[in-house]
């Protein structure tokens, strides 16, 4: 699953550490999310969506291959 997390974070000018603290996850999780190695749970996806005030589907791009 592709995502725009890194772009959105850089637009807001916040560090991975800060975002991790806001979302209550580890910095390593943010790194893995940005690199597309890890797909978030629905709860974390909602938290990200609410923080950036953007719908989930605009942050995470679902691909058929993800099945």
């Amino acid at each position, binding site marked *: 699953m592709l995502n725009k997390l890194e772009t959105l974070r850089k637009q807001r000018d916040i560090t991975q550490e800060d975002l*991790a*603290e806001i979302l*209550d*996850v*580890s910095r*390593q*999780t943010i790194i*893995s999310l940005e690199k597309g190695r*890890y797909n*978030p*749970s629905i*709860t*974390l996806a909602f938290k990200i969506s609410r923080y950036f005030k953007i719908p989930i589907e605009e942050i995470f791009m679902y691909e058929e291959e993800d099945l």
Partner: protein
Amino acid sequence: MKKSSNCSLWILGMILGLVLFLTPLIMIQSGQGSPSKIIQIIFLFIGCSLFVFSLLMLMNSQIKSGKGAKKYNAELKDERNIIIRYKAGYITNIVMIIFLAVIAFILLLLNYLMPAILLAIALILQSATLLFLSYYFNKRM
């Protein structure tokens, strides 16, 4: 004050555990007559358990206090870390089952029947528990 007294308690537990662990060994070395096997095993078991328990409690109290507490809690509750722990635990479990089965087989070949049987029973119980819990959580979630 309370934290410091807790630390002292765990350090005391570690020292006591070490003393209990070393007592039968020192008695044998100093020639004061070796204690019976059962007493040796009891001392070693209690000493070892007390030492490990106190050490873990001391580490836990150190981690949960001070600056690292918030970071520790975040790391502990982090969903990715939880998945990693589940995966690592699952793979470790499978590897240990295979490893213990090999040991049971070797014991059987060496004619150590009782240890082999006990190990086989433990393995069967472990596998049965795994299946039972999987079924239980399958129905609950």
